[in-house]
């Protein structure tokens, strides 16, 4: 059932890109947040993707438990390995009212976030197209022997 597997792989890509978009939205929303629970300004978050090589989903776990060798190449798809804080320096803005003379702002560049958002959207679109193609192929395969 390779087509069902393609659907799962594409779905994992959509989930990952969606999470990336959520993190980017969070960064943009917090572009001026100077106070967090840690007392520092908000730190930019970024998502690290990793290719998932299988073994975690049910069919492959069952196969390995039963000692069976898969005829299909294992795994596939993408997973979010971690969401990490950007270690970059905070932005310093002059502020005469502050006792130190400046205010620290989050290390977020809105333009960079927008570019990342476009990249994520493009990858999401590509995944949707791949799902459409998989559905169409499956449909054609079901039409074999009809009529």
């Amino acid at each position, binding site marked *: 059932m390779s087509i069902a597997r393609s659907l799962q792989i594409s779905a994992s890509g959509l989930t990952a890109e969606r999470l990336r978009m959520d993190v980017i939205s969070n960064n943009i929303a917090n572009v001026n947040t100077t106070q967090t629970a840690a007392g520092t300004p908000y730190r930019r978050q970024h998502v690290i993707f990793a*290719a998932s090589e299988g073994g975690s989903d049910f069919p492959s776990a069952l196969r390995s438990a039963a000692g069976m060798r898969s005829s299909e190449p294992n795994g596939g*798809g993408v997973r979010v390995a971690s969401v990490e804080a950007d270690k970059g320096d905070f932005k310093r803005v002059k502020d005469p009212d502050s006792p130190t003379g400046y205010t620290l702002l989050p290390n977020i560049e809105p333009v960079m976030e927008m570019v990342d958002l476009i990249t994520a959207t493009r*990858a999401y679109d590509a995944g949707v197209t791949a799902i459409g193609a998989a559905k169409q*192929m499956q449909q054609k395969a079901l039409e074999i022997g009809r009529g």
Partner: protein
Amino acid sequence: MLDRLLNTGTFQAAQGALDGLSARHAAIADNLANVNTPGYKRKEVPFEDTLARAVKDQTSQCTGAASGPVRPFTPCVTRDTDSQARADGNNVDIEAEMVRLADTSLRYETLTQYVGGFFSGLKAVINAK
């Protein structure tokens, strides 16, 4: 009797090609899902040569047509490590993958039509219409 009709080389070659194409589709879906994964190297499924060899082994010496059953073959997934990678080590080219995706679905649909036609022909003969 049906075995003799269904185990022909051409029919099994078409079946093998459908398997190969759906494996290729899975590889393309994987490449597209990993377009933003650092260090990812694109997968490809070059099954044509393996399938051609499997078919050739069964080709009749006299007519050149595939006669016996084609040796079962499994499409293999390989990694493309030669293509130019981006700064993050990922070498997936989204445009090239979309072209391959379209190509794979078209080939798949062509083969489903062929296999479908094969069955309609068979049905017509059975019903003697």
